[in-house]
């Protein structure tokens, strides 16, 4: 009997409501003190293509998904057997083979599925979905409309599941009702009834007690929330005082902006849907220059249109914007709704010439919050664009986290010219001239002290910024190379000084960002093997490490987070003292590996790479690491892993 450890999956055509089903289930578990990790896979399609949602539940913290399913709910046949029968080249082979022995499959008895002989190790629970819906509708006098209410199938699926695990029905009922408020409450009631009828049907028709999985509320309850990554990022933007967000719809970034849009009224946040991403980035740059905290969100194809604007922001030392750049499967349009860590190299050198910017890649939801919040501080402290680099997986996973410590919330706005004081002389720009005693145009040192210079050559590269409209704070600004007063120059001395001013900020950033936000070495100091990775694989690797620890294997994990400026020295030290290195990335070329080689000279030859558009499962990482301990493959040979059978 497996208690409070369940790997559940619902599959069906895109648009059939599996999301609702899975998310209500997740919420019902989370509210009852269980930990949840849920993730969805779907096509870039509105209706009809196969999609599925996994919900993993446990008493313990969960940070990844497992391949084996305990309960599969199938709304259609394809979910079970795949599409090899109707696609020239099959897309998948269904999930039947993924069900763990002892597990079960709940399916719509209408779909024409015959349990195969070779899976006698699992149980089959056919449920007459439409009959259940019809019964629920009959109660409200709509018994003849069952086909119009097919969407209720997902509620039926949910009810059936709960019966099988003997989970208290009331919790779910509450969650459902809380989602249908006001004039929609009638529909809520209908959903609850359908779920309950399914619940009863399964309880009455099958021997649930004999089914080996059991879920029940966890009495020890902490203040937790159940959230998706994009929601956490949106929260961070709200808390950090972002006043201006632009966007152009694109998977998987849109959700963040739509979330903010929904709350713009009460949160006084301006969200502008632009005509494209070029407009998005430039509007955000314009707004940043005016002194508001501004942001935009996009993914690869949109970012490809923003690169010009990144250079613009960096060159004019705009205090922002913050760009949340959600990676998805590439290249080009690629796999719009799938996972990849494929844009690191692109965002590190996103435009012509050398200029400073910050790139940080959070590894989990908590880091998403922290990094996005920090990003607004850095944008203003260092006056440059900041890119936060989540991915489809982080955006879409739906997981319990401890309630955010909203105390981690220090706002830093950097140097600001207020009009009451003048720019300190040392930051005036004349220092360039004083250094070698050369006084052009017969000017005396100190001349023009009482004058504000937006691009004064300060020691640390950051000059006080002025908010347009401020008396005496007038300035010019140009994307051409410029003087301290922001006028175009092509002079050799000024050019050199300005390049140093701008690029010098990278050192300042390295010194300012807390080390533990730059990278983190997880696990034992005397590990026999060190995994090197970044971003959303963090949770999966941590989970895998637990499994390896149970094997008695010592594994550590170097998580790289601040990608620009890169903490090269520290990372090199850690790498050089590691016994054995394995690079884990969700892309073809090992992009972090390349960055590490460039920054530290250390080349990690042993690589576990995946680029099929799906995140690693815990099992895949565990298997890959076990292989290493078993001496396969030889150290320093490349092992590319994928889902391919």
């Amino acid at each position: 009997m497996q208690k409070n450890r369940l790997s559940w999956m619902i599959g069906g055509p895109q648009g059939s409501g599996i999301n609702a089903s899975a998310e209500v289930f997740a919420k019902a578990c989370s509210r009852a003190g269980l930990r949840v990790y849920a993730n969805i896979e779907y096509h870039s399609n509105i209706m009809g293509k196969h999609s599925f949602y996994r919900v993993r539940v446990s008493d313990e913290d969960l940070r990844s998904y497992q391949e084996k399913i305990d309960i599969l709910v199938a709304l259609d046949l394809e979910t079970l057997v795949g599409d090899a029968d109707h696609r020239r080249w099959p897309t998948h082979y269904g999930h039947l083979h993924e069900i763990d022995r002892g597990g079960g499959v709940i399916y719509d008895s209408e779909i024409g599925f015959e349990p195969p002989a070779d899976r006698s190790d699992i149980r089959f629970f056919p449920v007459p979905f439409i009959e259940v819906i019809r019964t629920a509708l009959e109660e409200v006098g709509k018994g003849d409309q069952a086909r119009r209410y097919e969407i209720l199938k997902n509620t039926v699926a949910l009810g059936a599941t709960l019966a099988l695990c003997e989970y208290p029905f009331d919790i779910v009922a509450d969650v459902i009702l809380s989602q249908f408020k006001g004039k929609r409450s009638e529909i809520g009631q209908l959903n609850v009834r359908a779920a309950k009828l399914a619940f009863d049907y399964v309880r009455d028709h099958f021997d649930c007690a004999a089914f080996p999985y059991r879920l029940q509320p966890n009495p020890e309850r902490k203040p937790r929330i159940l959230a998706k990554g994009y929601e956490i990022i949106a929260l961070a933007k709200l808390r950090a005082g972002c006043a201006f967000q632009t966007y152009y719809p694109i998977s998987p970034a849109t959700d963040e902006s739509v979330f903010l849009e929904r709350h713009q009224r009460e949160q006084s946040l301006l969200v502008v849907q632009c005509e494209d991403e070029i407009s998005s980035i430039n509007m955000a740059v314009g707004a940043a220059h005016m002194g508001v905290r501004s942001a935009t969100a996009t993914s690869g194809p949109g970012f490809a249109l923003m690169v010009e604007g990144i250079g613009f922001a960096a060159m004019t030392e705009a205090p922002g914007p913050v760009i949340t750049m959600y990676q998805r499967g590439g290249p080009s349009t690629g796999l719009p709704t799938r996972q990849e860590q494929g844009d690191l190299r692109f965002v590190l050198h996103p435009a012509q010439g050398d200029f400073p910017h910050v790139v940080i890649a959070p590894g989990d939801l908590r880091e998403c919050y922290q990094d996005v919040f920090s990003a607004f501080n850095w944008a203003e402290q260092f006056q440059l664009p900041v890119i936060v680099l989540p991915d489809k997986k982080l955006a879409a996973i739906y997981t319990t986290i401890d309630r955010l410590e909203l105390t981690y919330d220090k706002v830093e706005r950097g140097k600001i010219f207020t009009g009451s004081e003048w720019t300190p002389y040392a930051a005036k720009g004349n220092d360039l001239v004083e250094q070698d005693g050369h006084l052009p145009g017969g000017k005396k040192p100190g001349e023009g002290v009482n004058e504000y210079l937006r691009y004064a050559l300060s020691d640390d590269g950051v000059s006080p910024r002025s908010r347009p409209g401020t008396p005496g704070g007038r300035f010019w600004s140009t994307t051409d190379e410029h003087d301290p007063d922001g006028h175009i120059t092509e002079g050799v001395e000024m050019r050199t000084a300005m390049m140093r001013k701008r690029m010098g900020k990278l050192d300042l950033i390295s010194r300012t960002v807390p080390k533990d936000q730059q990278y983190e070495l997880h696990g034992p100091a005397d590990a026999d093997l060190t995994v090197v990775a970044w971003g959303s694989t963090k949770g999966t690797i941590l989970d895998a490490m637990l499994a390896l620890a149970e094997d008695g294997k010592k594994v550590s994990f170097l998580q790289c987070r601040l990608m620009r400026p890169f903490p090269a020295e520290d990372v090199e030290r850690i790498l050089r003292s590691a016994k054995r290195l394995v690079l884990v990335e969700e892309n073809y070329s090992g992009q972090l590996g390349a960055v590490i080689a460039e920054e530290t000279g250390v080349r990690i030859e042993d690589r576990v790479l995946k680029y099929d558009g799906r995140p690693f499962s815990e099992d895949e990482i565990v298997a890959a690491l076990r292989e290493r301990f078993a001496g396969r493959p030889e150290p320093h040979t490349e092992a590319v892993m994928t889902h391919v059978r």
Partner: protein
Amino acid sequence: MSVEAPVKRFTLKDYKSDLHNDWCPGCGDFGILTGIQLALQQMDLDPDKVAVFSGIGCSGKTPHYVKAYGFHTLHGRVLPTATGARLANSGVTVIALGGDGDGYGIGAGYFVNSGRRNVDMAYLVHNNSVYGLTKGQASPTLRKGKRTKSMPEEAIQDGINPIAMAVAAGYTFIARGYALEPKHLAGIIVKAIEHKGAALVDVLQTCPTYNDLYTKEWYDGADLPDKRSRLYKLDDTGYDGVVHDVTDEKEIVAKKAQAVVKSYEREPIPIGVYYQAELPTYEDMLRQRIPALDGKPLVDIDVFHRDVNALLEAMR
């Protein structure tokens, strides 16, 4: 009893930066610069409350010569940038400007979409029918079959009709000025700034260096038998481009059609206001959506450490 003109706080000099100007001698841009400065002075706007945005091109250098907040942005991106700025701080008068290549070529997408957005700001296009700063290629306003001296062949694309485009795009103020009549131009610019909404001023500009077709002499009609100017003022003809009842869709359509027809008049070319309708601006709509924006620029609203407890509660 005579009405005294109110005393102005600022003189023309207050709008002039002391930077050396590097346009070619005789460039029409000088006239546009003067037009802007005259307009600011006529409106007595505080230079600290004005921000001038430009694209890239000869025209793009204009902000450097105006004493006001000045932003010399990217080629073709001046409208989104200025829009972002304006939305962030409605306390500042925003003027956007750029070349005809900048605005109608590479920036055409923003030109169109800014019309339908109707943000309250003035946009001036230095229309010289060439790409000045890149040495005289045809710009989008050069008509099919025309060839300036720096072009190896005649233009084979048709020229754009900026006025008709602006009408279709939804600009609520549409005018045309002439660079070498800075005073008349200043009058138009004042109206454009005062207009609540997206205001386009297409400014016919001479480029003595590359455009040997549309020279001062050409505009003056020096080559015509009667030496009559190739320009005339709409104001002088009783033309009325203003929509008087903006709730009357019919009047709007009629005035739009009138402007479109006018815009195809080629010689002489009408200058002045082609079309104007004071419709709700983007900001008007925003204020309905975001109550805090009423009476306050976005930049002045305190949004730090927002209360997100209700959101967190919903995530339980």
